[in-house]
């Protein structure tokens, strides 16, 4: 009981959020110049980076489908992303998440336009605090759009559920570890409200389940808005000016000159000291 009063008090959670409030979410598109599409996402303590390659020739060839393309989703957690060191070997959990997230994205992408090909999506979780699979999926959707791959819609994902029989949205690890907590990762195509990912860990009544879906749909609208803004941000006049190739080169040259100057002045000082 004491734990309950600590975690939810007067309609507020232990970190000050209301029951339906998301953790702070920031998304930046096109962060990896070598990938065809990419995205960096920070969602509370979760940090994920996604890169997209393709469509390209399917390898191994027996995976190729002559009627549509395939999505190869690679979800991986960095060794330092959790409190105990995570083994770099892909485990059962990572294989499962890669499978469900890939299937969720396959519903959004026009794969029939790219027969015999594969689209590779790599998501690396750099820091995690519950809800990393939905963070990975949200980042991957932005990276796919950034790569210019035709899609029906973006995929907005969020973890909903309940703690102490109270429906909440976007739980942290502390909330997830509560006894009888229900965790429900949920992803949707925001325009058509088509649910493309739904997993459930725990026991939930039908009414609470309906409420959780409703909460998830509301939260996904907010996430969709942030995803859209991240994609548009890249082409805003300010960011175009900042990332102008000529200006970048000039800045780099200046930096190089400055570092050279510093080095030479340090060397001179060293000679004088000797």
């Amino acid at each position: 009981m004491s734990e309950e009063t600590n975690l939810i008090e007067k309609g507020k959670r232990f970190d000050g959020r209301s029951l339906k409030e998301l953790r702070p979410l920031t998304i930046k598109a096109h962060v990896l110049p070598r990938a065809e599409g990419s995205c960096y996402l920070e969602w509370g303590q979760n940090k994920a980076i996604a890169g997209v390659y393709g469509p390209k020739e399917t390898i191994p060839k027996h995976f190729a489908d002559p009627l549509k393309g395939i999505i190869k989703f690679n979800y991986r957690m960095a060794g330092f992303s959790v409190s105990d060191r995570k083994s770099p070997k892909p485990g059962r959990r990572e294989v499962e998440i890669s499978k469900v997230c890939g299937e969720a994205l396959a519903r959004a992408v026009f794969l029939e336009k790219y027969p015999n090909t594969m689209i590779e999506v790599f998501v690396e979780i750099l820091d995690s605090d519950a809800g990393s699979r939905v963070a990975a999926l949200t980042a991957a959707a932005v990276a796919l759009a950034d790569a210019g791959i035709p899609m029906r819609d973006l995929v907005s994902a969020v973890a909903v559920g309940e703690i102490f029989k109270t429906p909440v949205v976007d739980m942290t690890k502390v909330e997830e570890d509560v006894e009888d907590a229900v965790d429900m990762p949920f992803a949707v195509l925001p325009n058509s409200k088509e649910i493309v990912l739904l997993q459930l860990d725990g026991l939930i009544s039908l009414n609470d389940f309906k409420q959780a879906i409703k909460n998830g749909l509301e939260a996904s609208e907010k996430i969709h808005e942030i995803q859209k803004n991240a994609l548009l941000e890249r082409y805003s006049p300010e960011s175009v000016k900042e990332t102008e190739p000529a200006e970048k080169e000039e800045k780099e040259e200046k930096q190089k000159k400055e570092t050279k100057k510093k080095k030479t002045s340090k060397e001179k000082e060293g000679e004088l000291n000797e």
Partner: protein
Amino acid sequence: MEESNNKNNNHVEETSKKIVVPGEFLGQTGKKRIGSHVFIKDNGMYSDVLGLLSEADDWINIVPLEGKYDARRDDIVIGVVASERFAGYDININGFYPSFIPKSALRNPLRLGDIVSGIVDSVNEVNEISLTNIRTFFDGEIIHVSPVKVPRMIGKNNSMLNVLKQGTLCQFVVGRNGMVWAKGGNIDLLVKALRKIEHESHLSNLTNNINEFLEEEKKKGELK
């Protein structure tokens, strides 16, 4: 100096067309002719890609801002010989798979790494491309650009091509597949100009801006 800064700011602020994201609602279907990258669902028109929306009373179209080469018949493409087989060559043309040219279609044998140009003869249902009119380039180098930005590098009535040719004095051929062959002149400047076009392709008045840019760079070169 201040004036020139203002000029630079102004050209960046001009965005003439709306940018749309995948799944964005574009309006109800009516009598409009549908262009590329627009799909219809439940009597509504939606964008399927991140791109620039251009619209009139009777048509709607989206020009993508990113993406792979979408081959069409009669496109002029540039490629590099990737491997030799018994009956022909595999040419890397920036597509999903290499394109095959039979040896019977060539007068002289090719070598690995040779740069060739060709015209897309046909594209089949699995996006395999067959080429005709193969020509070999001697010397020169390949510059990779984004295939969706190629129309901006050519411009209306080749306006951008002329500006680039006059400004850099390079001989070059722009392939629709995002590969540019260039030789002679100031290739470094050409690369800079092409990167600038890629970067600002969604802004208006691009040809004039590139013209100004090339003149400025020329002056800088003279001063050095």
